[in-house]
């Protein structure tokens, strides 16, 4: 095994081009487990922890460019306002020690259906900035997950950053597990209201071969909110609309039975989380709308 230690992003890209089988290692919280248990014996490890750029983020007008290696701890501490869904999801990852090392770039690299960043990214809307010596491209998050633990990166590409839309409305993240800390999701759900475009977006984790959006549910809800003029009136969402939204979210799942839970349980739990997160976010939207009226 060789340990490649690029000091800059350009060097990292050059190394990845020269050794396409090299395994990047950032926080190591996925890679080292595989090496410790001899599940993986890469020819080259490509250490990314010396590249300062990957640990930085910039908030632009509409999106945050989040460096691939920014640890979850930083996201929780610093980006709660801009990226509330991702900040909530980050807080549910493992433990403080793991959150101090692991980040979204590694979560995307592993592309596990259980990765907690994914539902939040799908709901907020995001693009993965992938780069190689050939150039840079932006991969829409909806096109990034290509199969169980597979993603759209080419062999010579690295993730430089993720561009995540700044929240323009309330966001929520919900996760089912057997306890609060150190738990892989049985299933997870992210929801973001986008008042500017009058749309709702979802993200579902651990309930299909890849992280997915419940697009039929989104379309149904967008139409229902529009029809009843709810974005303007700020009235409550009727229980029947919420119920149908929840059912459509459950129907979007394609889960399996495994040690963490049965397919049936997962479908049920996704429906419950969909309804709850919709209620929480909508209450918060209505609250904001009322405060704004009060101030006007």
């Amino acid at each position, binding site marked *: 095994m060789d340990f490649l230690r690029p000091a800059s992003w350009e060097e990292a890209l050059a190394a990845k081009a020269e050794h396409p089988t090299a395994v990047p290692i950032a926080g*190591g919280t996925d890679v080292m*487990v595989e090496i410790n*248990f001899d599940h993986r014996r890469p020819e080259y*490890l490509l250490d990314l922890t010396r590249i300062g750029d990957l640990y930085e983020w910039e908030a632009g007008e509409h999106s945050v460019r989040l460096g691939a290696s920014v640890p979850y701890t930083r996201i929780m501490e610093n980006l709660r306002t801009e990226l509330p869904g991702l900040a909530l999801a980050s807080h549910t990852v*493992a*433990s403080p*020690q793991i959150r101090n090392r692991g980040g979204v770039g590694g979560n995307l690299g592993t592309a596990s259906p259980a990765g907690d960043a994914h539902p939040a990214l799908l709901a907020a809307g995001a693009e993965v900035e992938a780069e190689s010596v050939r150039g840079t491209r932006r991969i829409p998050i909806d096109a990034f997950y290509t199969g169980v633990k597979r993603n759209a990166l080419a062999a010579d590409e690295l993730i430089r950053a993720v561009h995540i839309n700044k929240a323009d409305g309330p966001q929520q993240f919900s996760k089912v597990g057997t306890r609060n*800390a150190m738990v892989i999701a049985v299933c997870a759900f992210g929801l973001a209201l986008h008042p500017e475009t009058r749309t709702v977006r979802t993200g579902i984790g651990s309930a299909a071969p890849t992280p997915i959006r419940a697009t039929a549910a989104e379309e149904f809800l967008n139409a229902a909110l529009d029809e009843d003029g709810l974005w303007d009136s700020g009235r409550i969402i009727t229980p029947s609309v919420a119920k149908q939204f929840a059912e459509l979210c459950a129907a979007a799942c394609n889960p399996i039975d495994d040690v963490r839970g049965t397919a049936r349980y997962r479908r049920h739990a996704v429906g419950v989380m969909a309804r709850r997160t919709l209620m929480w976010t909508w209450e918060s939207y209505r609250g904001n709308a009322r405060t704004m009226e009060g101030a006007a």
Partner: protein
Amino acid sequence: MRVNFTVNGRPQQADDVWEGESLLYVLRERLGLPGSKNACEQGECGSCTVRLDGVPVCSCLVAAGQAEGREIVTVEGLAEHARQRAGGEDACGTSLDEARRWSPRGPGSQSDEGSTSPRATLAPLQQAFIDAGAVQCGFCTPGLLVAADEMLERNPNPTDADIREALSGNLCRCTGYEKIMDAVRLAAARQGEEA
């Protein structure tokens, strides 16, 4: 490969390190510092917790090469680290030899053969663990000490929720955690009295 880094305030070098080796392995097997424990090697138990450039991490998940040029504090250097933080005496770190011979009995106490180093004393948190009865088999203790000490550095007046959160990555199979909570509360209270 060779790894150069700072361990407990002193520059160290480890040779013949395998590229896929963990920092935990280097500390225990190459530097002879067995304080950091190896239980799960998958980040679940926290018994291998050390500070890497000040930040608590599972050393079993840090590749040895990633520690190059970085500063590590292990449980063996905790007493010295706490002393420095309190503004005490010279900041010369803990040598490997001192760390290897570390004993919970401080200087001047009767230890077998008087082999304790003159500098080996307990960090206030270590004393609190003993006083509160928070150590049973002791396997989880080093990781808990490193994690809890870092929290007290950041947050001198933690709530119970803060303590639980900070220690949520450390498993203990013996104590049921209540005595550990007591110990951290005790250390926080003593820290407050001194300040």
